[in-house]
């Protein structure tokens, strides 16, 4: 209990002192996870819409792959990306290993299936006859897609929450491909691991509380948006 209280007080102190080392870690965490989320959303939302709306050959297999992807073990993703990006690997020429770019790649792999899966489910939940109704009201195909996306906005926001939550708090893969290098690839989760190993429980707890605060703030913002956008809530 003492360590927890000490950690909490230290967290408050660190936050309000705007400790440069801490700010650097927070900034890198938000940049890596924010960028990964953005790229995943750009790729995942259209993919989720197509899977939710269209029937085609091989769809069942694709959906099974997406569902499998939603439960990918982060360390396995980290290991795979490590092998791909290592000097002898097929993508070794990129020299991305132990850089934030590699961390973004692993986080995209982890969040993309979540965003696709949740978006697909949200879109598919709309009544099957709705696209026909919208077409009959004069909507173009593009307008139909945007209307369905707007109708499924709660589910789409949930997809983004799930995607962000999975990667901001993830440690296994970023540790493997980033290496937890100070001033370069150290993020909140890897810093927590390091401080715990060092026996600096108060500092580890402080970082954990900051991580929780970030996750809570992001979720609260999205829930607030959901409430504003959806008259049913």
């Amino acid at each position, binding site marked *: 209990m003492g360590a927890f209280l000490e950690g909490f007080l230290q967290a408050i102190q660190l936050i309000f002192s705007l400790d440069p080392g801490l700010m650097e870690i927070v900034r890198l965490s938000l940049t890596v996870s924010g960028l990964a989320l953005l790229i995943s959303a750009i790729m995942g939302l259209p993919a989720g819409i197509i899977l939710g709306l269209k029937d085609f050959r091989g769809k069942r297999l694709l959906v099974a792959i997406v569902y499998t992807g939603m439960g990918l073990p982060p360390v396995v993703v980290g290991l795979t990306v490590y092998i791909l990006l290592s000097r002898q690997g097929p993508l070794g020429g990129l020299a991305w290993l132990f850089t934030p770019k590699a961390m973004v790649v692993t986080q995209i792999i982890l969040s993309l299936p979540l965003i696709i899966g949740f978006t697909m489910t949200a879109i598919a939940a709309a*009544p099957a006859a709705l696209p026909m109704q919208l077409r009959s009201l004069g909507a173009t195909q593009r307008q139909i897609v945007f209307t369905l996306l707007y109708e499924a906005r709660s589910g789409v926001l949930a997809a983004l929450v799930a995607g962000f939550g999975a990667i901001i708090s993830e440690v296994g893969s970023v540790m493997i491909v980033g290496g937890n290098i100070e001033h370069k690839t150290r993020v909140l989760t890897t810093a927590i691991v390091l401080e715990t190993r060092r026996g600096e429980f108060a500092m580890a707890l402080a970082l954990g509380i900051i991580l929780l605060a970030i996750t809570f703030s992001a979720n609260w913002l999205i829930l607030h948006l959901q409430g504003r956008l959806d008259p*049913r809530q």
Partner: protein
Amino acid sequence: MNADVILRLEAIEHRYGARVVLRVPELNIRPREIFAVVGPSGAGKSTLLRLMNFLEKPTRGRVLYHKRAWTPNTLPIELRRRMTTVFQQPLLLNASVARNVAYGLRVRGACNGKASIRRALEEVRLAHLAEQAAHTLSGGEAQRVSLARALVLNPELLFLDEPTANLDPGNVKLIEESIRRANEERGATVVLVTHNVWQARRLAHRVALIYDGEIIEIASARDFFEHPQDPRTRAFLTGDLVY
């Protein structure tokens, strides 16, 4: 083709898989008429409406609109936007009543439709609920919003698929009055699909009986109800058609 025809179906055959669900050698819809299609459930009435609204492509045959044959893919958006369907299930968007009624106008890029939205809602006597969330409406109110959403577009062709199924007499009366006004005051050509022969009798200028995917008889409303030619029409009108 007769000049007095707005929509024409020629040699239509429509299949779902191997099953033929509709076979219509010829059908003409005249401008500014209310044409009712009656028949038992599963006879092909809704399918006919979807083909007329170019929401589905017939397996065989042609649908002509203003004397030209189109398919759902070739029909220009300007022509598509001159027709609309009110479906049996009023699928409203998760938004206010007014935003639902505004939908068709918004997709057309018409931003200043407040007066016409109000007028359409007044026609279905729901102007007082304009700002209410659509999901809070009763079934009858939702169907009236669905009708207002179509009326606001001033469609040249208005298709109605069982618009009063499962509604109470008060809502039925309101909706029928709106349909009549759409035809008489807005000049809409109305194709009404219903299994309610009394509704067809109250509203339609011409009536067709569709049974097992085929049109059995077409006549003016008076002839259809007073002098039916086909024994199946007589049986349907007396409630004796077994299906």
